[in-house]
Every structure is written in C-alpha cells, then in structure tokens.
C-alpha cells in the first residue's frame, strides 16, 4: 500500500515536471546551442558542510558549471550564484579539496525557467527533481587515503599460514598424550605401518613420514589409498 502511494507520487511528480517543461522536451539538448546575444541567467544555491563553519572552507571552494565553462565562488555565508549563464542544461558541482559534494544538473529554458535534478549519466533524460535554488549538502570529507594494515595478535593468529603451522604443532604435542606411545603394542603397530609405507628404509621420505606418523594409527589401508590417489597425477604429467 505504502509502496504504491509512493509510486503514485513519483508519477505525479514526473507528470508535473513534464507539464512545466514542455518547451524543454523538444530535445534533450535543445537549449545548448546559444546565441552570443541571448539572455543570460543566474544559477543560485547554497552549499552546506554540516558541522563546519563556512569561513573554514569557503576560501578553497569553487562552483564549476560544465567543467570550467562557468565559474562561481561561494559567499561567506555558503550561498553562491553563477552569473552570465545562457539557457541550456548544465552540471553544477561544488568543488573543494576536502569535502565531497554531489553534482546537480540544472536545466535553464530559453525563458529562464530553472529546474534542478539528479545527475544520471546513463539515463540522461531521467528526472529526479532536486530543490531549486540548489541546496547542496556535503556528504562528508573526501577519503583520499587507504588504511594501513595494522598489526594485531588476532590478525596474526587468524592468518591461514599461522593456523596451518599451529594446528600441526598442537597435534604433534597433543597426539602422543592422547595415544599412549609407550604402549609396546601400539609402537609395534606404528613401526609396522611405517615399514609398509616405506619399502626402502634407506630413503625415508620426510613428508610421507610425517603424514604417516599422524595418520598411522588409523591403519595402513588409508595410506595405500592416498598413494594410489597420487598416481594419476603423476601420469598426467
């Protein structure tokens, strides 16, 4: 219900806009070609940086209309006016090195009617009305800098490399405690499995040895499977 109401309002707004600017809609850029002696208009508005005194930022601010085609300056109270602009459609930007302002598109008819709308470069004819005279509010300071990666213990511990190192370490330390290696039967079994895996005792494979050591208690069948598993990989090369 709420949504439909909103939609209806939007549609009405669009209708109103269409009605107001019938002479604009002859073509999206009908007003761009201007005569040098044509009427000149004034784009007015106000720029606001919430929480900051105007005198702290106005000296670095400029109003750019269509790049640097027309330039305006900000008054000490934050308001601005760009004089001598012929009719047409322009993107108005407030430019400061420290604060971010959204650009606004301002359409001026040949009779001097003004309207402001959101800049949409993809759907250029879309009209989302903005207040005129312009009210441009800074959306915060510019973020120019990346955050440095700070070093913390948690980051260090959660690092996958560290996890990979720490977990085996834990296993090495804890496993002998859990499985009693002093038990002669167990030891025998382990040795047996090791011999089976390592047909050539003179050339012990370290990595294999390690894996076998950890998985050894579970029996040799699995180890055999894994060695089988590696075979196709070798073949593929």
């Amino acid at each position, binding site marked *: 219900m709420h949504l439909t109401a909103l939609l209806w309002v939007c549609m009405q707004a669009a209708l109103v806009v269409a009605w107001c600017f019938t002479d604009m809609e002859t073509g999206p850029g009908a007003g761009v070609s201007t005569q040098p002696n044509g009427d000149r208009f004034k784009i007015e508005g106000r720029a606001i940086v919430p929480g900051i005194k105007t005198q702290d930022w106005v000296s670095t601010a400029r109003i750019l209309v269509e*790049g640097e085609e027309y330039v305006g300056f900000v008054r000490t109270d934050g308001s601005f006016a760009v*004089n001598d602009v012929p009719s047409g459609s322009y993107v108005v930007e407030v430019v400061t090195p420290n604060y971010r302002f959204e650009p606004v598109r301002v359409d001026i008819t040949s009779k001097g009617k003004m309207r402001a709308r959101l800049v949409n470069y993809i759907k250029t004819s879309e009209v989302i009305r903005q207040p005129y005279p312009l009210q441009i509010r800074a959306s915060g300071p510019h973020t120019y*800098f*990346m955050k*440095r990666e700070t070093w913390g213990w948690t980051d260090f511990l959660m690092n996958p490399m560290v996890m990979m190192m720490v977990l085996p370490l834990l296993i090495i330390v804890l496993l002998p405690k859990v499985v009693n290696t002093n038990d002669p039967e167990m030891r025998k079994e382990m040795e047996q499995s090791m011999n089976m895996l390592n047909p050539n005792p003179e050339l012990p494979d370290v990595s294999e040895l390690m894996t076998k050591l950890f998985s050894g208690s579970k029996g040799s069948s699995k180890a055999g499977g894994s060695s089988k598993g590696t075979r196709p990989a070798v073949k593929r090369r």
Partner: protein
Amino acid sequence: MAKLILLCLKFIILSSAVEAVFEDQVGKFDWRQEYVGKVRFSHFDTHVQSSKKVLLATENNVFAALNTRTGELFWRHVDKTGPEGNIDALLQHGQDVVLVVGNGRLLRSWEINVGGLNWEIVLDSGSFQSACLVGQQDNVKHVAVLKKTVISFHYLSNGHQKWIENLPESETVDYQSVYSDGNGEVYALGIVPHSHIAIVAYSVEDGEIIKQVTMIHSSSIKYAVCVVISQGMLTCVDPLTVSLYMLDLHTESQMTQIPLQAMLVSFATTGEKTVAAVMSPKNKTASSLNLFSAETGRRLLDTTLIFNMDPYGGKPEKLHVQAFLKKDDSVGYRVMVQTEDHTLTFIQQPGRVMWTREEALSDVVTMEMVDLPLTGTQAELEGEFGKKADGLMSMVLKRLSSQLILLQAWIAHLWKLFYDARKPRSQVKNEVTIENLSRDEFNLQKMMVMVTASGKLFGIDSKTGSILWRHYLDNIPSNAAFKLMVQRTTAHFPHPPQCTLLIKDKDTGLATLHVFNPIFGKKSHVSPPALPQPILQSLMLPLMDQDYAKVLLLVDDQYKVSAFPSTKNVLQQLQEMASSIFFYLVDSTQGRLSGYRLRTDLSTELIWEVVIPAEVQKIVSVKGKRPNEHVHSQGRVMGDRSVLYKYLNPNLLAVVTESTDLHQERSFVGILLIDGVTGRIIHEAVQRKARGPVHVVHSENWVVYEYWSTKSRRNEFSVIELYEGMELYNSTVFSSLDRPHAPQVLQQSYIFPSYISTLEATLTEKGITSRHLLIGLPSGGILSLPKMFLDPRRPEIVSEQSREENLIPYAPELLIRTEWFINYNQTVSRVRGIYTAPSGLESTCLVVAYGLDIYQTRVYPSKQFDVLKDDYDYMLISSVLFALFFATMISKRLAEVKLLNRAWR
C-alpha cells in the same frame, strides 16, 4: 546469485589492488608549489597595522592574498580563463576588496580575512575604464565605476546600484579615470587627445552634474600613468619625457613638470602622505630605489634601497610599494619588484631580499626530466671503461685505486652521518645545491627542466622542488612555441649532458635554437646553426655523433633538411641511413597530412599524402608513440592459454579530427590510425554526435581518447586496441613495409562522470608494470585510472575464460574514486599537462603535473613489488627471528636433558 557475489568479490579485489596513498606518506616524496601568475594589480593591506597581507590580481585571472613575511599564499581564487575572467581593477577598503571582472561585466566584493565572497553583481555591458571608492578615509560607502559611456554608482555594502548616468560628449572625450575627494563629489576625467582635459563633477547623492571643466594642457600625456592623490592633485608620469606632471584639480592651474631620472615609478599612500618610489639604474647589476614626496616632488632622506638584479633574470618592470609610517612619523617602505621574467622579489631596506616568487612557473609550456650525473667518484669508476686499455697491470692498479677512492668516500659519508646524528636535527642542513647533486641508488631523483611561456628556463630538483638554476632568455616572441629535446643524457661521462630548446615564432615560422646543459643551466659552447628559413618539423634521430649527441633534423619550408650537430661523421651516417628515415608533416589549415623520405643529399621526397577535407573536418592533433617507451610482453595470454599478439607498430600515428559543423546533431569526432612510413590507413573510427576538446593517449597497441557526447551530454572515453591475431607475422623485426595482414581492431567506450583537463599514461623503465592513465580533472585532482578498466575485451557476459584472464565485466560508467587521486587534497589548479618519466625502479613512475601549480609525485601502478614497502615491519620480522632462535636454543637444551635422563633410566 552465487555468480554475482563472486563477481562482486572479484571487483572488490581488483579495485583494492590499485594503489592509493597512505596518510603517513603525505609529503614524503611529493610536493606542490602554488603560483598566481604575472601580477597585474597589487594592494598591500593596511587597514590593520599588523597585517601581513598583500592582495594580488594577475593576468592569469587569479585573485590571491600572499603573506608578506614569507611569500606564501593565504588563499587564492582562480577564475575562468580568457577575457571573461579578466580582472580590470582592484580596490580595497578595510577588509573588503572590490574587483571589476570581465571588462566591466561583474563587480565582486571579497572578504580578505576569510577569503570568501561578499557579493557579486552583474553590471551593464560597456567597455570598462576605471573605478574608484567614494568617501572619506574611514567612511567609504560607495564605489564608482566608469565605463566608456556611462558612470555608475554602487553601495559598497551590497553592490546595489545607487545611480547610473551617461557621460557627456562620450564620442569625443576619452574618459580615463574617476576620482572622488570624499566631499560629495565624484570627478570623471577625460582626455581629448592633443587638445584638452575634460573633468565632469557629479553629485554623490543623485548623480547630478555639478560642474564641467575643460583644461588645456601643453604636452600630450597620452601614454601617461596618472593617479589622483589626496587633495585633488592629479599626478602623471610620462615615460617618454621621463618626468612627473602635477595638476591641482581644484585650482585648475597649469600643469607643473618635475623631471626625474628614473626607470620605474610607483605610488603609495600611508596615512596622510603619498609617496612615489622611483627606481633608477645604478650600474649593470644593481638599481637603486628612492622615495619622493608626491606633493612636493622632493626626495625623502634615508630611503635608498639597493636592488641587485639576477644575472639570469629579466629587467625590473613594475614596482609595488608598501609604505608605512615609522615611529618617528617618517615614511618607511618595502617594495615588491616585478621583473620581465614575472619574478616577484620582496625587498626591505637597505636591500635585504625577504622572499622571491618565480611566477613564470605558473605557465610551464614543456618539460623534460634528465638523470642526474654520477658523483665524481662514481664517474671515476665509470671513466675507467671508456679509456683505451693500456696493459693488464695498469688496469688492475687503476681499478684498485678507484675502489680505494670509493671506500674512502664511503667512510667519509659514514663519518658525516655519525657526526650529523649527534647534532640536533634543526641544525643539520640538507640543502641541495648544484655541487652536491648526484644520482641516487634507484634514480628516483632527477632534474626537471621546465620551459615557461615567458622564456625563462628552470632546473628544479625533483625530490625537494627547489629551484637549482634559472635562465631567462630575452627577446622571445610573445607567441612562441617551444620544443625541448634531450640530445645527450648524463650517461656519457666526459661529455656534458646537452638539451636543445627549439623556439619558434608561430606567425613567421622562424626558429632559433638554445643549447644548454640541463644540470647547470649554462649555455653550451656548442654554437647552434642559424636557421634562416621557417621550420616545419623537427625530429630527433636515434643516431649519435662521435660525441654521443643525438642528431636533430630540422625540416624547413623548402623541404630541405639540416642536421644539428652537422659534423662529417653525422652527415656520413645520415647518407647511409637516408633511405630509412621517414617523417611526416601536418598542415591543419588545408587538412593535409604528408609523409616524406630523406634522400642522400638531404633533400626529401614525398611518399604519401592523406587529405582530409578542411571544410568538413579539421585535424586537431596527431599523436605518435613516445620513443622511450618499452613494451615488455608481445602478447596477451588468453583464457584458453593461447596468445593474442599485440600489433606494435612504432610508426603508428593517431590523427584526431573534429567536424567544422558544430551543430549538436551533425558534429562528430574522427580518429584515423595511419602508418607514418607508408601512409596506410590502419583504422578509422567516427564518433557521431560528439565534439571536442579531444584528449588522446597513444601507447603500446592502444589509443585512448576522450570527447564530449552532445547527444547524451556527457564525457565519454573510447579505447581502441590493435592485435595481430593468434600468430605473429615476423616476430624479430617490425617493418611497416612488410605487414600484409591488417590488424584486428577492438573498440569499447565508457561514460566518464567528469570533464577532464589533460590525459597521460604512466611510463616505466621496462614496461613490465601495468599501465595507468593519469587524468587531470578541472577540480584539481589527478586521477590514476588503471588501464584495466579501459580494455575493449571487457566482456558483457562473464565466462570461465574471461575470468581466467582477469577481465573485469563491462560496466558503462567508469568510477572516480577519491582514493585514486594521486595528489589527495593537494589540488593542481588548471592542470595543463602531466609529464611521466620512468625511474630506475621498474615499479615506480615519476609524475609531474603542471598548470597554475606544479605537483611532483611517484606512482606505483602495480604496487611496490621490487622494493620493501615503507611500512615493512622490521620489528616483527626480527622479533620472530629472535624468538625462533631462542626457542631452538631452549628446545636443544631440553632435548639434551631428556636424552640424559633417558640414558640414566
């Protein structure tokens, strides 16, 4: 859905892979210098005794406030370029400054403490003549603006017009200045040349004409500079007769003439007194300044000031005097001297220079970066290889001795470091001078040779930004075009490096050469050839003469070629090479592009010609590739492991044309890719409903250009990439004459959400590092946009293969992220050019952006892969190492104990 998430993730990874500045890197390897341009008006702020401000209005349409103690900027306002932003007058009252802008179109009032605007109003059209403030000393309420035919009167508080009146007999009388004595009358002064002076007095209240006076004057003060000083005295300086004319406007007496011995005169008022500062030449290198009372014309005592002229600078041109009352009520002063080379020097009595500003640097035309020379000891080592071998033994001895010298230098360096470390930091001077300049380990510090429009050359250290040498070339034509070329680098040790500046008068085409040493700025003893004919084209050949200087060819309007240097050796080499030397000429007025070949007798023959009908479209720019560019990989590896080879034609030219018809429905932008040797058109593209200004970058196998789309009213980027295909025709040598297959052409366009001022691509030593585009924006930011985003192979539908290739899916709009601004908040106003140079590190590219300001920095397009990052955690790595070391020690000990215990069991 999962696919989408994956896509997003990839995008995030890709975008975070792009470099950005860290906050602690601010000012570490970058610097900015801000300029205002050639000063037109200046006004010392006197309304507060302790004020340190001087207000400047410049020819570059900049209004700024400088600190008189240091010469630094308080604030600056940059208006639009051209006559519409031209500042016609500057008036100050209290903390308000009134400017008349754009030939009397706008009246602006500024608040000078904050640097904000008070008000701005539009005046009626009409050519501006003069303006003045109306009122008593501290009670100024109005401002009067005099135009060719009207005089208008405005309130100072809000700019509203009080009255406007037509001037009588404005057809014959040339009204030049307006003046008020503050007693309710405003005078408009007009001159009828060679006849009389007309004065019209208006009532301040309602603009009624109170009286009209005409005065016969004896001499023609046509070229005179006139001011009206207090009590209605008109004082004029006539530079022709070098004398001062005085006229009392109230008594209407005859003019009195006071002869002067002077070059330059400037007036200043302090309190009740008005003085004239007069500069007169003393000897060849110095001038003296004296103060004269403007009421009496008498010289004031103890006011002599000596100004020493820079032998590499220009002559003084203008004086800006700051007069103040001393405690004993006598007049003291400081003076800002402006010289022909736009330098501002602020001097205090008796001649102490407080600061200088090189305002010529606000108008850099072209620049080059030159490697610094090796130190003496390093050069000694290098020099060993250049000489002829004379026996094994002596060579060994020489090597040993030079190694000893190096060792000695190293120990001396260490000692100096140790010595400096003990001193407090503030005392350690690390000033760079020409003497201690030397190349650093990674060749990151270079000499920036900058050529400015005023004809002044600068040598700037790229690390600190300090000016190491300057050289003013006088008699440069005002519309000169400059081309700077490095003929010999510092790599050929006994021979000094050599740069050549080609200065060409745009009207006549006549050119001169200035040959100089780029490290010291001194004019070379090599005498350049006289060029009697207009020059059409200049080209540097990779050929070198026996002194390792590259050969410069100059083509005159008779299509005759002359070489510089033109020794016998060079001419012989040229004869051998002639058949393979091709060049092109562009005639944009006739739309003709023609290619020529050199003959052995140094005449030329026409090989090809492309005519672009000038009535339909005009050639805007022709761009080749940079000769010092390296391309590392010949192709791109595709998703299916095949290779797509790049079309790397070093002779390719990108020709940009714009339609002459500017109607938005019919205008277009065209781009032609032409082989410069054969004239073969490789590719042609037209962007309909588009217009310029077009910015182009041409590099490797791609061309990126930017234009304005009139249909959608937005800026668009387009990229063209050329590929040979899956096979390379001749992989060893590229020859334009033997390429039977036309390259594959891929093109894609994107929306860019801002206007751009200039465009350049990064450049690295070997071309391994990925490329970025550096985009200068009107807001002053310099955006570093990865070339990856401008890739015509960006797919619309993501496939397994495109993912394998790391292609970003196509999105119509390119983003501007402020993290990509390489100059963070150090904006560069009106950026006109970006210069990129490789450094000794493959990852690092040196960047200089110039416009009104100069900004130098380094960029790392693929991050710093070849050096440790500056946030590298030495502490962590060493503590881990130590911890491991101790852990092994302890565990060894424990193991021993355990073994022992086991043995006992």
